[in-house]
């Protein structure tokens, strides 16, 4: 407890007669010698005598309490700020450059508050009735503003505010400053935050409301700006593995930030983030914030297909030699160009690249070039490779698709099983129960208590070993080792037997190719192609499922991306004929 002396009270303690008073956190007097807490609280004493009492109370984080629920006054946007703050902290511990939090994310957030007129602007409003109120309450409002800033200082271990300059030149945040109106008192009954009610009903054209998935999108935007080595699928996987606060992020709000009623709808999350949804959010936010062109994605960036392909080739246990081919396809399709890779929200027809999906799609295309994946050629090539490996045990082994399939199938099935079990065992509910209103509160707390008791009972009956050991975050999900027979490594295998020397260049033995799609969807629905799984070869299905599991995306999304790359790669063939075309390799 943070306590301080209170010399203004001169009464004797009713229990030990000592005159030595301290103040508790709630502002009540207590006797420092016998720890007897009085009923008297500091507010009772005339504030004129102690002029700095208000400042003191603010610095202790002691703020006006609503009558129904003890707690601070706080705004919804402060809640989001808190979540962003936590997320940024975790990203920092994951090894992301520290500027991400204090410079990039902080600026994005400030820009967001400004654009959505919640703060950093002359007239932070969203209803006209409010405006008048703000002007009238000017004196108070500056008080509250400084208060809320201090609050963010207290709640986030280190605030998003990076330096003194930002404090001096930017007006302090003063979100939704409608405090004393009777309506807002009534509204506060239905939410712990001051503006939960207004926020959930807030509809204004051109304004993008922040949501919890939105915080992830904002995080990803900052990662992208910084060109960090984290893809969107990585970020979402960290969320799913509970490294990055998301689902129960509000749990770590300070005790005094009460959360109930309308706040529940705003902060309670009952689903894992979905790749496409967050991707869409990211795009919307970027346009809403009117962000300039992002830093260039050049060949030395992690997000460049050349590097990402290496990563995913390793992850998928494919031979390193394949990298040469992915590199070539990247070049031929122009996917490695800075302009096509760099995100520019303001540009006409702006589009972000799904870097991870694209890199994987490149690998799929290369696999198709090498093995055709028609449920036939890949197996006969495997036969050749195996015969050769039998005869030639000293050389670099030839890559056998069959051996690789057997290993991958087993590992992925296992991983998938664990993943499903972990999902089934996930505990969604926070330690603090969320409830609709005060009438609901005892019920919710009782339910919470009951669940905890019952869970205790069943956990003693479960396996003694802790069920889900928390994995440390890693960008790799698989680890392959040369000398481990249970997870053999194919990285060093050669593509001999699949590639044939022709003059000075190597040419794929397979000269056929089939296109993943002949027609692109031209309707107004969002997808580019339709993926009807049963129409495709089993090997192709396996590979799509394998990779889409790695990225936790739908197979159809990957199929779309493959088709788009093929469209670029076989531009001519597409216009000439719709039949299966031959791959032309130069």
């Amino acid at each position, binding site marked *: 407890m943070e306590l301080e002396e209170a010399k203004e009270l001169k009464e004797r303690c009713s229990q030990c007669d000592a005159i030595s008073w301290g103040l508790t956190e709630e502002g009540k007097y207590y006797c420092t010698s016998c720890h007897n807490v009085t009923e008297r609280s500091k507010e009772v004493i005339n504030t004129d005598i102690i002029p700095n009492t208000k400042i003191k109370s603010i610095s202790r984080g002691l703020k006006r309490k609503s009558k129904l629920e003890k707690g601070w006054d706080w705004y919804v946007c402060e809640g989001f700020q808190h979540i962003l703050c936590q997320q940024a902290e975790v990203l920092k511990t994951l090894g992301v450059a520290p500027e991400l939090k204090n410079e990039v994310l902080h600026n994005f957030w400030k820009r967001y508050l400004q654009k959505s007129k919640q703060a950093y602007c002359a007239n932070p409003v969203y209803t006209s009735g409010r405006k008048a109120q703000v002007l009238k309450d000017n004196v108070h409002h500056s008080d509250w503003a400084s208060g809320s800033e201090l609050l963010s200082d207290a709640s986030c271990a280190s605030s998003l505010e990076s330096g003194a300059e930002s404090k001096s030149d930017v007006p302090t945040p003063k979100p939704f400053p409608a405090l004393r109106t009777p309506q807002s008192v009534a509204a506060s009954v239905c939410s712990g935050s001051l503006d939960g009610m207004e926020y959930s009903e807030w509809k204004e054209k051109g304004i993008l409301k922040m949501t919890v998935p939105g915080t992830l999108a904002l995080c990803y935007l900052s990662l992208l700006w910084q060109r960090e080595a984290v893809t969107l699928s990585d970020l979402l996987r960290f969320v799913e593995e509970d490294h990055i606060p998301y689902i129960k992020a509000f749990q770590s709000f300070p005790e005094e930030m009460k959360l109930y009623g309308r706040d529940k709808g705003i902060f309670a999350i009952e689903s894992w983030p979905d790749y496409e949804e967050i991707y869409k959010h990211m795009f919307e936010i970027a346009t809403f914030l009117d962000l300039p062109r992002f830093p260039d994605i050049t060949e030395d960036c992690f997000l460049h297909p050349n590097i990402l392909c290496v990563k995913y080739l390793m992850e998928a246990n494919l031979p390193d030699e394949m990298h040469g081919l992915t590199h070539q396809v990247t070049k031929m399709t122009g996917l490695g160009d800075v302009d096509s890779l760099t995100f520019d929200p303001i540009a006409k027809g702006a589009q972000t690249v799904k870097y991870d999906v694209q890199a994987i799609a490149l690998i799929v295309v290369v696999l198709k070039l090498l093995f055709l994946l028609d449920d036939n050629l890949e197996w006969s090539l495997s036969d050749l490779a195996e015969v050769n490996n039998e005869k030639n045990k000293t050389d670099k082994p030839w890559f056998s698709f069959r051996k690789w399939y057997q290993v991958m199938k087993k590992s992925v099935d296992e991983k998938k*099983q664990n993943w499903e*079990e972990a999902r*089934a065992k996930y505990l969604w509910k926070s330690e603090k129960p969320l409830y609709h209103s005060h009438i609901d509160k005892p019920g919710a707390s009782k339910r919470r208590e009951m669940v905890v008791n019952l869970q205790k*009972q069943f956990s003693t009956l479960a*396996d003694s070993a802790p069920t889900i050991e928390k994995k440390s975050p890693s960008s790799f999900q698989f680890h392959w080792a040369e000398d481990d027979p249970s997870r053999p490594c194919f990285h060093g295998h050669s593509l001999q037997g699949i590639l044939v020397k022709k003059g000075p260049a190597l040419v794929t033995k397979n000269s056929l190719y089939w296109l993943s799609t002949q027609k692109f969807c031209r309707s107004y629905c969002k997808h580019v192609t339709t993926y009807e*799984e049963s129409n495709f070869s089993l090997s192709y*299905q396996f590979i799509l499922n394998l990779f889409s599991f790695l990225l936790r995306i739908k197979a159809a999304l990957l199929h779309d991306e493959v088709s788009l790359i093929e469209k670029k790669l076989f531009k001519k063939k597409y216009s000439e004929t719709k039949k299966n075309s031959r791959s032309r390799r130069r």
Partner: protein
Amino acid sequence: MRPTACGEPASKGAREDCGGAHPHFLLDVLRTQDMSDFSEELTRPESEDDQEEASTVSGTRVYFPWLQKHLDTVATGGKKKKDFAQTTGACLSFIREALLKHQWQQAAEYMHSYLQILEDFDSNQRQTAPEIIWKLGSEILFYHPKSSVETFNTFADQMKNIGVLNYLKISLQHALYLIHCGKLEEASRNLSQAETWRYGEKSSSQEMLINLAQAYKGLLEYFSWSKKKMELSKLDKDDYAYSTEARNIFSHSWKTSVNFSALIKTPGVWDPFVKSYVEMLEFYGDRDGARKVLTSYAYDEKFPSNPNAHIYLYNFLKREKAPRAKLLSVLKILYQIVPSHKLMLEFHMLLRKSEKEEHHKLGLEVLFGLLDFAGCTKNITAWKYLASYLRQILMENRVAWVQEEWKSRRNWWPAFHFSYFWAKSDWKEDKDLAYEKALVAGMLLGKGYRYFRYILKQDHHDLRKKIKQMKKSVKKYSIVKPAV
């Protein structure tokens, strides 16, 4: 034998006993309530299996078991199901799988996560969840090696207080569990609590459950009463302990009868309760009371048709030495419900003794009816009765009666009863049975019939005289006249 040595196997037996009975009562509940939730879940894996098979059939070398599930999630367009619901749904199927495989620890592990459904924002889910949790949880705790009666009790007590709807049902099942474990006193205490529990206005389903709780309490009391009665029967009447024991028993019965009466008045099948209630009433000489209970149990139209009700009543009336007409009327109803019941033989004899001609005819019908059932084909008494009665009737020249019964059976009885195979095996197993059947066969099918001929051919010195007689009877009375 040392006491421990004989005590052990007994208790083991008891444990096995309840092991057998417990899942049954749970299954019963599973069957009756809330099938919707389960059936929905149950149909899904089936279709998945089908799909899997299909993909193996069409596929040559690659096989994807997890693929279909993945596709399913892709296919469910429209409103997206929350992942929270997915978690609880997956949990439920994992628990069910673990239970089927008797992996109690795993089941408990998933249960830990499934419990969060009690905090679902969807109040519908929240309301149906406790019942499912109770069913699954009690199953796990019943079998889990680390579980004990105490854990079960804590669980049951917690579950009782989740929502008011389940209190009585869970109390009742908890009590049954305790009875299975031999903790009769605890069970009785539990039932007393349930009996006095009230919430809001008494609904009809509540009342039913309260009555059941009461009746089970009564049954427990009956159990201790009959134990005391046994002890009493061993005591000497002059023993000083006798009078106190007798008084004890007396005080018991009054309370018990109150427990039973409420339940017995509501329509339903209450065999064990009725039986013990009547036994107690009879013991204290309240014959009128007992008769009333049994009569209403058997004849009240609101009650479901229940053969046992008539059997109890018949046995009671027999003990009471009631007039034949009364006994006949009870058995007539039983004959309509269960024509294959072994009491039908008694019915037949009663009908034979009657003076009325229609009763005599009915007596023949009853015997034929009884032997229509596969379970009665080797009932020697039935055959004996039929043989002698047929002879008597044919002697009285009532061939028409026999013809009438035989008409509908002519096509199938020969193969059903009188095949060559049966002749051989009957003779091998039971010569007396074979003899009676041969006599009947001869009378119904003529002396040329193979069953009759086979038995006739067997030369057995004990039966020689009898067989000779049989030959004579058949010659004289057979309904099949040899072709002239």
